[in-house]
């Protein structure tokens, strides 16, 4: 399966989804006016990934900012992952947040409480 690779911009995160390694990364800022367009390829890729995955999947989410429009799309991504976790193979989410960024930690905890996938909260210390 082809990896998904999207370069980051000032308003959209960088994306590296590697099926072979089972490592998915979303990093940067996610604040587009309309996030559906941006997240569609990610959700589509995960649909295809579900059919091909065998081993464990590690998901690294390291967002500096995300807007409420993105928050729903990120939930959609997590729901796809939850589905893989339930029916196929183990998924683990590493949720990174900057030191003192309680809002970002809380955002991770919100997802953790909605999605039935193990989350690990990781503080980035400079």
């Amino acid at each position, binding site marked *: 399966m082809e990896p998904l690779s999207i370069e980051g911009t000032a308003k959209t995160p960088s994306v590296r989804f590697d099926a072979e390694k089972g490592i998915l990364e979303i990093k940067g800022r996610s604040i587009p006016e309309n996030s559906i367009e941006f997240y569609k390829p990610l959700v589509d890729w995960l649909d295809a990934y579900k059919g091909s995955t065998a081993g464990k999947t590690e998901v690294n989410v390291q967002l500096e900012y995300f807007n*409420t429009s993105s*928050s*729903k799309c990120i939930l959609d991504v997590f729901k796809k992952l939850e589905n893989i976790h339930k029916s196929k193979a183990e998924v683990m989410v590493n949720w990174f947040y900057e030191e003192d960024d309680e809002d970002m930690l809380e955002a991770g905890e919100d997802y953790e409480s909605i999605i039935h996938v193990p989350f690990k909260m990781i503080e980035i210390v400079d």
Partner: protein
Amino acid sequence: MSFNVDEFFNKLNTGNVILSYKGSITTEVINGSLEEIEAKLDEIGESSKIKKKIYNVLVESLQNLYHHVDDMPDDVSTQLVNKFGILVISCDDNNKYRISCGNFISSEKIKYLKDKIDKINSLSQNELKDMYKFILNHQKLSAKGGGGLGLVDIARKTGHKMEYSFMNHNNDYYFFNLDIFVS
């Protein structure tokens, strides 16, 4: 006397103003404002915590404007650009930031907005968290990409009550101003 947007805008532009804009709310304006506020807050040496809160609030309030600005009444639209909105960020002596944003709305939206803000203002942090999670998990994104979460998110992140006013322009149109506080 009907509402005068220039007078109102000038009144907001007193004290220590950090960012001020009046005009069409476009993607370019949003991008430029976000860049500018980051640079300004860095220059002031504001803490990363406050910087992030202001940045987040600014993203949500500008995108609220972007998604919800109504068509102008004819007598206003002859003087103003499309998608007209205002934004003023200022800071008082106690280091409390005020983010004011405003746009024209038709009168039928007043009740919805008023009820929504009053409701959000009445909730505790825990209740806001529950409301946020409920909307996140149960409400679909609109075609425009709005999720009905913006104001709840703002209230959660700022921890301050929002203040609002509706100023009559003519029978059917009002100017809606929202003040958001960060400290």
